[in-house]
């Protein structure tokens, strides 16, 4: 019966990804590029959800990982003249280290303390980017446009910021993340992570060393967030502290909860809806933060399971 739901959910996600693939040929320019941005941010949310949704750990410092990946990639390109791929790997490696170190400390705490520790580490990271501004270009950040090489496909050159390159790279990233999380969630490890979310001490008393599994989840989530950050740097050619600020740690919480924490595909919906909500609102009123705030509150009161969470509960029992 697990096999059945695995197939179902792979089909379901495959369908959505296929839809996204087709969309790129139909979408008007603006939405074409919005959707590529949404897919990168959604990948970040998927990575975040891995921790919040499946392991039950809420972090208020994930911008640290996103920014770590972004800055590693960006500064790598700027100073070390890394290739795009090199930068991506460098970003991944760097966040892997960061999240491992972070996890070793932070996971000694849990619940509210964990939340605040993540907040504090995130803030420290943000401040250190400002502090070492000689090297990081501080608050202004920097543009990679001039330093980034070109992508060569069948000896044809493309800019990474080329709309089609951007769209499809984003799509590949998202696909990889969705696939990986689905497979993990259907593997024994995924079962244990969910058990930890449901009842940590009981899981421990089933003979699992909970700490290691939490560390695994955190490192995976952190590293994936970092890769998303690095990808963002490549495709959108700007690196700045705005991606290390606390707001950028709050966003994935919002996206994940709205889409449905603990559903693989949920964060994609959450991100898409929120992105367009802000986009439309900011056209109407100057005050989209008001809406974001209101959505957060209403959601947590009336809609704690989010969109896909509710769907799963009602109809799509097999949804991972």
């Amino acid at each position: 019966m697990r096999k059945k739901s695995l197939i179902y959910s792979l089909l379901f996600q495959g369908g959505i990804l296929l839809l996204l693939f087709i969309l790129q040929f139909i979408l008007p320019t603006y939405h074409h590029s919005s959707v590529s941005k949404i897919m990168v941010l959604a990948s970040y949310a998927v990575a975040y959800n891995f921790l919040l949704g499946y392991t039950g750990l809420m972090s208020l410092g994930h911008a640290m990982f996103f920014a770590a990946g972004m800055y590693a990639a960006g500064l790598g390109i700027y100073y070390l003249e890394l290739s795009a791929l090199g930068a991506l790997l460098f970003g991944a490696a760097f966040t892997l280290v960061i999240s491992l170190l972070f996890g070793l400390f932070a996971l000694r705490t849990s619940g509210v303390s964990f939340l605040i520790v993540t907040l504090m580490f995130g803030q420290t990271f943000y401040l250190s980017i400002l502090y070492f501004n000689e090297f990081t270009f501080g608050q202004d950040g920097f543009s990679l446009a001039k330093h980034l090489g070109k992508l060569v496909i069948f000896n044809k050159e493309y800019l990474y910021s080329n709309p089609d390159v951007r769209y499809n790279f984003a799509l590949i990233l998202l696909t990889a993340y969705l696939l990986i999380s689905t497979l993990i969630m259907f593997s024994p490890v995924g079962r244990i992570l969910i058990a930890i979310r449901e009842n940590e001490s009981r899981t421990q008393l089933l003979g699992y060393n909970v700490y290691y599994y939490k560390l695994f989840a955190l490192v995976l989530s952190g590293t994936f967030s970092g890769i998303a950050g690095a990808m963002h740097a490549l495709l959108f050619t700007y690196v700045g502290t705005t991606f290390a600020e606390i707001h950028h740690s709050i966003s994935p919480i919002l996206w994940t909860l709205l889409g449905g924490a603990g559903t693989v595909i949920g964060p994609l919906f959450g991100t898409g809806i929120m992105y367009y909500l802000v986009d439309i609102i900011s056209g109407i009123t100057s005050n989209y933060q008001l809406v974001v705030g209101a959505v957060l509150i209403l959601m947590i009161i009336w809609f704690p399971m989010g969109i896909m969470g509710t769907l799963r509960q009602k109809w799509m029992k097999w949804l991972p």
Partner: protein
Amino acid sequence: MSSWINENGPLLFLALLDGTVTAFVLALIALGLSLVFGVMRIVNIAHGEFFMLGAVFSWFAFDLTDDPLWGFLLALVLAPALVGGIAVFSDRFILRKIKYHPESTIVATIGLLYVIQSLTLIVFGPEARAVEAPLYFRIQFPWFGYSGYKLIVAGMSALGLLGVWLLMIRSKLGLYMRATQQDLEIAKTYGVPTKKIYAAVFALGGGLAALAGVLVVPIRQADHLMGLEPLLLSFIVVIIGGLGSIRGTIVAAFIIGISDGIISVFYEPTLAKMLATLFVAMVLVLKPSGLYGEEVA
């Protein structure tokens, strides 16, 4: 040695002086956060916004009366009351609905933070608005001068802290609060109206932050973004002091206030903030119970 004193004596003196003032205000703000956590077991991310509202209200009071002293007194009474009202409202219609679940509460209060901030932007506008101090004089030390009002702020914060302490040990409310903090279930069985207590505590917490806002606004003007900084600082304080412990909170406020003063006088201020946040993270990791107060999890 003596040369060092001659050179850095004034700096040290100022660091201590400034640090002490900061510490008192910080203690007042952090105490609100600490009470809320201690009794209700929740972290209120919107706490800094309550502080901001206090400052903003006192600008309106100043604008209304057009007299520093009367405006100040009016704000002193009104701001905490209004903010307390807002707190009660959000307790009743948000926190109670989500049963004070720790994580949900954090999300909800983040939402509250955004809402309060944007509404303030709409009503109050984006600029920083100055409020005249109720009474203002300058104290001349051999090396430099200092604001007399800052000392008054420290004094009044001290009174505020004393007031809370008396409330806790003398009043029935205080008794109830301590009972609820000890053990919610037992408190219930002994007929403590915990729902009311929760509302009261949340209002008290918000009120204290607002009070701090009123006191501080004449030495640093009011603007709609002023909430985040004190929020982070009082986090730091409350954690180092031990979540939920009043004594710890006050002690920690002094440690942070003065050390921040000293580090940023003798070294880089950004560095000071970096170290402070890192330090807090480490305290939480290595000594989760803080200086005083009980384990969190």
